[in-house]
């Protein structure tokens, strides 16, 4: 039965979907947290590695996976434009080639909805909601149809996991207000029960933080919101984001993977507060009713 893990990879994103026919990874963070998780769970084969957003702090973790001799990665998908022409891009090419030599890797330098139907490895439908092929082809530095300048964040891949026709989890990477606007124009349903909030709950860039959060929450309508952050954070998630989420979503529960002064202050002494600070790794069994997440911090 499928299980989803949202990993505590400090200031970064990484999620692991263990489905009946293999493991899919969405983002790899940086450092060894993901690699350690895979070893601890005796995973030696990754069917699909999706790098939704090609920032260097996402690629570092991917390169450690690809360099490992104990792990086989079969398919890698990545939107490349934000790093093309950089040293880190060449680093990635070396590790892709190194991995390919020993295990016949399939690599595609594009993540758009054209992949839909190719990413499922069991009961969970892995959907690419965005960016559109139009936006991905234009790339960072160009403009969208409304002549707004696109950044690498604007074309962040947005991935959704659907189980039994129910949209369970959304991974919008670092999508900004322009990317969100384009996503909503091309996609009439981006709802999900759980979301890993964009930008670790920080400023989305190029837009009003309250307006972005409200628009995003109204479109996704999540019941659980995760902020994937590092430890001892004083700026993440932004307090305006927390307030806008609470105002927009009735009964929502928020979780930070690392420790956040902002979330701690928000929870305060309220023992009935539904939100949790510094929960570590989070996991979710898709077949459990009612659906509920479990987190590492529950042990203590």
């Amino acid at each position, binding site marked *: 039965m499928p299980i989803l893990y949202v990993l505590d990879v400090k200031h970064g994103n990484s999620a692991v979907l263990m489905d009946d026919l293999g493991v899919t990874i969405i983002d790899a963070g*940086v*450092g*060894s947290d993901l*690699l*350690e998780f895979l070893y601890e769970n005796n995973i030696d084969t990754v069917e699909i590695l999706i790098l939704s957003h090609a920032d*260097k*702090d996402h*690629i*570092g*973790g991917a*390169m*450690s996976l690809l*360099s*490992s*001799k104990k792990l086989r990665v079969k398919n890698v998908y990545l939107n490349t434009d934000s790093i093309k*022409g950089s*040293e*880190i*891009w*060449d*680093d*990635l*090419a*070396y*590790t*892709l*080639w*190194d991995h*390919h*030599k020993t295990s016949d890797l399939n*690599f595609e*330098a594009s993540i758009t909805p054209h992949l839909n139907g190719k990413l499922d490895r069991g009961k969970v439908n892995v959907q690419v909601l965005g960016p559109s092929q139009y936006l991905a082809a234009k790339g960072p530095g160009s403009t969208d149809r409304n002549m707004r300048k696109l950044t690498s964040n604007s074309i962040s891949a947005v991935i959704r996991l659907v189980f039994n026709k129910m949209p369970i989890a959304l991974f919008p990477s670092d999508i900004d207000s322009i990317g969100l606007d384009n996503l909503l124009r091309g996609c009439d349903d981006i709802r999900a029960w759980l979301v890993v909030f964009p930008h670790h709950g920080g400023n989305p860039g190029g837009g009003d933080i309250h307006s972005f959060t409200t628009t995003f929450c109204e479109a996704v309508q999540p019941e659980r919101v995760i902020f994937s952050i590092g430890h001892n954070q004083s700026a993440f998630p932004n307090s305006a984001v927390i307030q806008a989420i609470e105002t927009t979503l009735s009964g929502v529960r928020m979780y930070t993977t690392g420790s956040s002064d902002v979330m701690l202050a928000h929870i305060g002494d309220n023992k009935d507060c539904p939100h949790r600070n510094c929960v570590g790794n989070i996991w979710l069994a898709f077949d459990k009713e009612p659906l509920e997440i479990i987190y590492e911090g529950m042990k203590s």
Partner: protein
Amino acid sequence: MSATMLPDKIHRVAVIDDDEQAREAMAESIEDANLQPVVQRTRLNSLDELIRKLTRDADAALCDHRLTPRNYAAFQGAEAVAALYQISFPALLVTAWSTEDIDNIRPYRRKIPVLIRSGGLEPRIIREGITVCLNEFNNVFLKERKPQRVLLRIEDTDSSFAYVIVPSWDPDTGLKLPLTLFPAHLGHIDPGMRFFAIVNIGALKNEDLFFDGFEIAEEPGNSYADLIRP
């Protein structure tokens, strides 16, 4: 008293330091850890002599890094701890100069499981440190010490050092590595070259990183060659 359990065979802990006062302080810490200090007061002429004495008189060791200034030893502490690691003898390196001495500690760092900053020599740290060593001898590593094969890129070189980036550890932090760390068979080390190496990318600090098992990274071929910038 520390709660860390040590095997019965670990009881006597050798104190290796060229400074008499430091030796006394180390010995006190060892006693506070409910272990028996074995203080080495006389000069050590060789690593062989050190190994012979320690394997006879002690079960573990605390070793300062700078041992040569007072003509106390013919070697430095990092070298000694690494030699002891080779024979699965638990030894902890102590230094006030973890940052300043990193260039001469680094070549031995893979075989130095525990580097204690002077002033941090608490009884609990000693017991835990010995346990870390014993675990490594059984291939059980702390996350911060686990060896991983990763890519590194040479950014620049001078006559003594290579300046490298390890993207899987921190793509924004440059590291200075002595050229002597690279095996001679790899040839001349030039900017732009890439290697695979065994690195503990779970390490939190630069001075805790080790590098070993260098291989030249092959330039991408087939369609992957097209990914590389001209």
